[in-house]
């Protein structure tokens, strides 16, 4: 193990013999390990409450609670701490029992220093290894979850587009029928028809609802359009400024402050400007809808390793955890019927993925919500595969 890593070991020495402890601590310090000391099992446990340790070197035979009792409490309360027991020469049985109750290992007194240091390092390596394994397992679980979510969304997208397509034809018939009747009612011969106004009103409602349904089907189908991508050098902050102009009126009506920020060294990236603009419009207008009167929205553009990131934050009410999981699914909406199609974020995500990027959301209830979009520079060699 590198000396640099040895320095990181958080070590606690527990022994009722102060002389033994301080000598050991001094020798360890010479080798780069700074150790805390405790004179009893009780003191050891109380230190561990506030100072998590990697390794505890624990004398078995102490007044007060014994090393073995202290060990069982450590394994119970501080599962990530490894314990090395120090036993008397005649008490190897204690050591074996200790390992059974979860100690990393035991050494018999008198202890040879290098042997002890070796064990401490081994115990620490075990912790590091377990930590890495745990991280790898978490990463795998997260990736798997993301993949499931991606597949689920793709399937939903295909299904939604299929349904939209099938619905368009009957919708067209409803539309033309209502329109036909409306045009008849305009004629002189129907001028005195009884309850004509009621018929007109009902037909208008049919027409209006067809319009609503059409918005949904066209949005869904527009999504699966396979138009050839236009790629050009895009200054993302220019697009942000443009979009801010488009939504200025809405923001002013609610007296919302829109704060736009960019990194100084932002270089243009090769991507599809229309799609980035669409994403910005969706995210920024969502932020305005979510933010109460006199709130604040911020948009930050920053360079990343392979492209840029755009973060849109609002000072709304936040999104509950159970909604966060569904927020990118089609038709998920908390708005009143007719106010939102539930497709904005779904479409946003589809577009971003088409650009080879990703979109993330973070939210704190009662505070804010932040969407971050990562868009790769398709002009860079390592991103060429995304074309």
């Amino acid at each position: 193990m590198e000396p640099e890593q040895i320095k990181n070991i958080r070590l606690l020495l527990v022994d009722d013999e102060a002389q033994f402890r301080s000598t050991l601590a001094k020798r360890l310090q010479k080798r780069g390990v700074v150790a805390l000391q405790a004179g009893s099992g009780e003191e050891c446990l109380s230190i561990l409450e506030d100072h998590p340790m990697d390794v505890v070197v624990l004398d078995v035979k102490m007044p007060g609670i014994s090393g073995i009792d202290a060990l069982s409490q450590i394994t119970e309360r501080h599962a990530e701490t490894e314990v090395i027991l120090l036993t008397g020469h005649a008490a190897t049985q204690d050591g074996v029992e200790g390992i059974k109750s979860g100690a990393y290992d035991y050494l018999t007194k008198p202890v040879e220093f290098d042997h002890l240091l070796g064990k401490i390092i081994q115990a620490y390596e075990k912790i590091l290894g377990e930590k890495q394994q745990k991280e790898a397992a978490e990463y795998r679980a997260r990736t798997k979850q993301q993949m499931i979510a991606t597949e689920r969304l793709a399937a939903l997208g295909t299904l939604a587009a299929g349904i939209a397509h099938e619905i368009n034809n009957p919708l067209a018939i409803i539309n033309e029928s209502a329109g036909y009747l409306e045009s008849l009612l305009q004629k002189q011969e129907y001028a005195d028809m009884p309850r004509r106004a009621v018929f007109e009103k009902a037909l208008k409602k049919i027409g209006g609802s067809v319009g609503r349904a059409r918005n949904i089907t066209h949005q869904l189908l527009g999504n699966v359009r396979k138009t050839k991508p236009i790629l050009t050098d895009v200054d993302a902050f220019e697009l942000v400024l443009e979009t801010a102009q488009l939504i200025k009126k809405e923001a002013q009506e609610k007296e919302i402050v829109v704060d736009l920020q960019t990194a100084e060294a932002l270089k243009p990236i090769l991507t599809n400007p229309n799609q980035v603009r669409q994403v910005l419009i969706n995210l920024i207008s969502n932020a305005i809808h979510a933010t109460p009167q006199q709130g604040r929205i911020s948009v930050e553009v920053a360079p990343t390793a392979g492209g840029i990131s755009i973060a849109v934050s609002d000072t709304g009410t936040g999104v509950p955890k159970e909604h966060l999981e569904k927020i990118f699914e089609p038709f998920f909406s908390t708005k009143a019927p007719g106010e939102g199609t539930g497709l904005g974020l779904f479409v946003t995500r589809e577009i971003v993925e088409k650009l080879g990027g990703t979109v993330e959301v973070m939210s704190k209830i009662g505070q804010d919500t932040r969407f971050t979009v990562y868009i790769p520079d398709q002009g860079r060699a390592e991103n060429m595969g995304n074309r």
Partner: protein
Amino acid sequence: MIKIPTNILLVDDEKDFVEILAMRLEEAGEKVTPAYDGQMCLDILDKKPIDVVILDIKMPGMDGINTLHKIKIMHPLVEVILLTGHGSTETAIEGMKLGAFDYLLKPADFDDLKAKLSGARKKKEEQDERIRKAEVRQLLRRGGNI
């Protein structure tokens, strides 16, 4: 001024749609002939003078794009407006490359449809006019040679 009706051939396999849109267009002063598939559309074009074809892209048998292809070979002066319930504007754009005048997404806005119909008809009339003038010039030249 009396409106001269546009002779429209309306082609869609959804009979209910053809029937009701034909009624609506007739109500708006146009002359509509219905057809329910690509072959029927071509047969009618052989027999009847038509200004504009409104053509559904997705039909069983000969689809709208194939039908359009044949219309443009046999009746190049007839203008075609494509209708699509399909999301693929890509197909519609391909259709425009094949010579369609324009396209509309179903369900279409009636005012949009009327605007595109009058545009298509105007284009056809201009084309007819140019051909007539060319024929006159040709006759005159021939006359001069005699």
